[in-house]
């Protein structure tokens, strides 16, 4: 498919309350990329009520905002969202689409790429634009982060990339920025949505929100059992963080596998990641190495976790962690 415009689209995902959950961060790098492509930075919002997100997108630098609203979009379904986004892509044929690699983003992006038989690169961590061709150069880590490949999709438009979460920071919003607003209408009949949500079972415990946590306290084989996790939970509580684990601990059943970080679990990039009794196997490290600051506490001075940590303490976590908790409490008393 050829592009009708040089615009760069950022898909802005919203929560059920209409607030943006992903995409505002992508407007930041999107601005420069759109400029290099010679197009407008365009935010695309699909949701039940898009007003809050429209305002946020304008403040965060979007030149244009295209929205589709309606009851059927209040909660994400593949059929409704791929229908609406597919409609917009068909109509506008943009040069590029960036989509945050949330669970929904990763559900939607390949569906759209497959529909339009176009190129898609997953989980990118950086972009450039080839000046002569307008090709988006997409950087993505492979083999658990041991290599980075840069890819292009020449002759295929729109070029679609999903973007690893927490890679970019959103720019400071500036109020009263004007953006061109286009409200499109596209209705999906209820019976053409082939999935029906029967029930939502909320898991209110903090571990369900690992991806959002700013501080994560994580334990591995060295935690020795469920008792070790009680200690880590205490540390997480005083820091306002959540508890996670490496595979050694979830395999032993010391903590549910929904808390697993790594290749077969979740990928996180919090502000602070404290790894306790975790050796640092590649399959764990690839899920947390993008954290801003990594602290490792381990008895083995040769544990590979120290190679990727910013601060390392060689010692018994059952002695270091309680003492550290006391320090935090003392400072806050």
């Amino acid at each position, binding site marked *: 498919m050829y592009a009708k415009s040089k615009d760069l689209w950022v898909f802005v995902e919203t929560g059920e309350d209409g607030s943006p959950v992903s995409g505002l961060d992508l407007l930041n790098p999107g601005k420069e990329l759109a400029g290099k492509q010679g197009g407008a930075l365009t935010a695309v919002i699909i949701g039940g009520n898009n007003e809050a997100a429209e305002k946020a997108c304008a403040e965060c630098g979007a030149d244009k905002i295209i929205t589709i609203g309606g009851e059927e979009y209040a909660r994400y379904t*593949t059929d409704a969202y*791929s229908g609406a986004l597919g409609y917009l892509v068909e109509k506008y044929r943009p040069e590029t689409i960036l989509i945050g690699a949330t669970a929904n983003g*990763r*559900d*939607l*992006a*390949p*569906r759209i*790429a*497959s529909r339009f*038989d*176009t*190129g*898609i*690169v*997953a*989980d990118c961590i950086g972009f450039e634009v080839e000046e002569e061709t307008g090709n988006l150069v997409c950087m993505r*880590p492979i*083999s*658990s982060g*041991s*290599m*980075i*490949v*840069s*890819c292009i*999709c020449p002759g*295929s438009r729109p070029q679609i990339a999903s973007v690893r979460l927490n890679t970019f920071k959103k720019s400071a919003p500036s109020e009263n920025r004007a953006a061109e607003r286009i409200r499109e209408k596209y209705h999906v009949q209820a019976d053409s949505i*082939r*999935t*029906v*949500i*029967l*029930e939502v079972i*909320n*898991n209110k415990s903090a571990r*369900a929100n690992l*991806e959002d946590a700013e*501080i994560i306290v994580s334990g591995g084989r060295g935690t020795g059992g469920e008792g070790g996790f009680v200690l880590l939970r205490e540390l997480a509580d005083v*820091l306002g963080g959540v508890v996670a684990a490496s595979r050694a601990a979830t395999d032993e059943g010391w903590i549910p596998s*929904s808390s697993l970080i790594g*290749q077969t679990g979740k990928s996180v990039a919090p502000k602070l990641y404290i790894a306790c009794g975790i050796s640092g196997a*590649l*399959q764990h490290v690839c899920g947390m190495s993008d954290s801003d*600051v990594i602290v*490792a506490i381990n008895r083995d001075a040769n544990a590979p976790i*120290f*190679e*990727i940590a*910013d*601060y*390392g*303490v*060689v*010692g*018994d976590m059952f002695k*270091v962690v309680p*003492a550290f908790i006391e320090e*935090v409490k003392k*400072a806050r008393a």
Partner: protein
Amino acid sequence: MNILVCVKQVPDTENDTIKIDPATNTVIRDGVQCVMSDFDRYALEAAARIKDSDSSVQIVVMTVGPEQARDVVKHSLSVSADKAYLITDPAFSGSDAMATSYIIAEAIKKIEDLEGRIDAIFFGKQAIDGETAQVGPGVAEKLGYPQVTCCVGVSAADGRMIAEKEVKGGIERVSVSVPCILTFAKPEWEPRFSTIKRKLAANKAVIPVLSANDIPSIDKNRVGPAGSKVKIKHTLVPEKKSGALMINEETPEESAAELFKKLSRANII
């Protein structure tokens, strides 16, 4: 009911065996053990659990890969699969995720000719080597089927599939019409092991091989490097961090105090 499970053979990274050839910047695959991708094991187990409650279910496994990928389909027979297909052709090698989705979609149509209607197609949510998570949705779109990604459980009821989908903050129970595509994340349960009896049978099993010529609907211009939209420009090995600032005081208490001091001075906590 036929459930098709799509599996992939990947290098065994459990033991950190991935090494990079510094001369070519590519992954050294020689001598690396290959195994079934983890999430595909959960997909296979999910199918086996449906079969546990309904013995009329037939589990068909397929993989697209080189001749060596026969090992993973054989393994799936030794665990729970009833039939297995190996889709292999030199023309398929070097396909990107979308070209692979196309090959799988066409192969599924061919397998339906041979096995009858397929009600549900299960994938791992992503392969642990490529990690694109694109092939399941890519195939769903090519076949025009609904999809539910990141499932951690499934049952069959009244001609529909009831999937438990992992979402932010919990689980969605989703009823989806068949035929459908489900992709599986890590559930709370573990896959079953193979049995000696099934292993012996799997070793003897004849595994049908489908090449590009056996699937006449395949347009060879849409597969392999030429049919792939994504082109690799460069590969590079990222710079390693310089290593941790080590804190090693006389006692654990002193180390903890020093760590706290450093983190609070740097405004980290």
